[in-house]
């Protein structure tokens, strides 16, 4: 783990939303839930990390996965410059969520950072081998620079940076100067005392 401290005001603002609806099914339900989450995002302003907790979700169908996960990620990827970056972290993800969420993300050529109930970080959706390994390296160390990732991937450092920048552009890693930070780390550092909401 890199030793450089990150200024407190550089961390993204964090909002945690617990999805209380146990059956996330039908596109109409998905639209309603997504609209609620987008309201939370709009309130945040600035650089933000929105954490969606799926622990209570018993079932999510493909239509809801598209609305509640894929479209939110798409909005984050397409949205704004550095000061308005938004990131999504999906927590409490279990096996029975993975199939539908992964399918919905892959349809749009997207990926998302998630965390199982066990705490294990997982990358869901469309990502190539280099991206996955780079992402895993950063998650393992919580934050890394391109030199560490290059070493882990067995490639030259100038080749690692574009991979990491792509992960940042896809909103899978947060970037602070020359360091790339896992979203779980950002949540851990900033998450205590974060605003909570239900959806």
């Amino acid at each position: 783990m890199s030793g450089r401290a990150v200024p407190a005001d550089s961390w993204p603002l964090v909002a945690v939303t617990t999805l209380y609806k146990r059956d996330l099914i039908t596109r109409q339900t998905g639209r309603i839930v997504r609209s609620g989450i987008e309201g939370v995002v709009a309130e945040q302003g600035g650089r933000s990390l929105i954490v969606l907790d799926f622990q209570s979700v018993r079932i999510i169908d493909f239509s809801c996965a598209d609305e509640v996960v894929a479209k939110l990620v798409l909005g984050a990827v397409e949205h704004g410059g550095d000061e308005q970056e938004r990131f999504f972290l999906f927590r409490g993800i279990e096996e029975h969520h993975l199939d539908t969420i992964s399918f919905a993300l892959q349809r749009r050529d997207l990926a998302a950072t998630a965390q199982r109930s066990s705490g294990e970080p997982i990358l869901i959706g469309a990502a190539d081998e280099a991206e996955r390994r780079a992402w895993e390296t950063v998650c393992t160390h919580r934050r890394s620079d391109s030199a560490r990732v290059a070493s882990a991937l067995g490639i030259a450092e100038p080749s690692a940076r574009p991979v990491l920048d792509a992960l940042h552009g896809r909103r899978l890693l947060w970037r602070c100067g020359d360091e790339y930070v896992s979203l779980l780390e950002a949540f851990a550092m900033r998450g205590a005392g974060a605003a909570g909401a239900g959806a």
Partner: protein
Amino acid sequence: MSQIVVIPEDLNHHTLEQLLADVNRLSADGSSRLLFNARRVRWISPYGMIGLLAAARVAGDRTGHPPGLEAPELREVRSYMERMDFWTAAAPVFDLPSVSARTHADSDALLEITPIRSHHDVHAVVDRVRERAAAILEKRLHHPKTSVIQFSVMLSEVCQNIIEHAEADGWVCAQTYHYRERLGRDVLMLAVMDVGIGFEGSLSTEHARRTGEGWSAAAALEAALLRGASRHADPGRGHGLQAIRRQVERWDGELAIRSGNAMIARVQPWDDLPPLQEDLAPFPGAQILVMLPARADRAVSAGSGAAL
């Protein structure tokens, strides 16, 4: 005087075609009342049952009069139809004497016939089948616990096709059978139907001009099932059927979708449906059949429901 539509003795996904063709022929001029004669019916599948409802709705729309229905003479068939809530669903589409509400306590159905009109109905259906699906999928069909979630997702997606694409109401039902002669194993049959605009109508605005003169019901079915085409340009739409097909394949099941004058099917060796048919009697809407067999590597059970 009413024209008689004779219901096949065994009304299933093969023989429904004859019923639809007869309804087409006899209601073509829109002048005659129809009477569906089901007295000789000896067996009826969930697909056949809601096919009967769909046929009645179309006949009523074309003639201006809901058709009459002569009930099956066989008590066990009438009893089965009652357990599947057929008569309640039939009341709006047939000209029937008043129907008393059935109590559900003695039903062994996985899912009685249920109208689908809104996403609230989809939520209610998924919620209702949860416990029954767990019992049937695990204990009768020997699928793992996770299959209940996968089945619920499939059920949600097929029902949503009605709301998102049909522009009309529809019905869903499901039951488990011992498929004795064709398979020698239990099978879960899920049937979903509507009499809306169909796949050709739903996809034509977005896709017909690309295909040109080759655009047809068969082309629309192929586009939807094999390529995930949707009436919406959004790339996130249209994945429901592809996902259903993928899940059915994982379970070595069968999926057939009929719309317009075509049917496309992902067929198993134990059924003799052709993978694509293009010369069927034209019929509105979409009619979807999913058949999920018990796992072959587990013991065969002879359960309730009719045997084929």
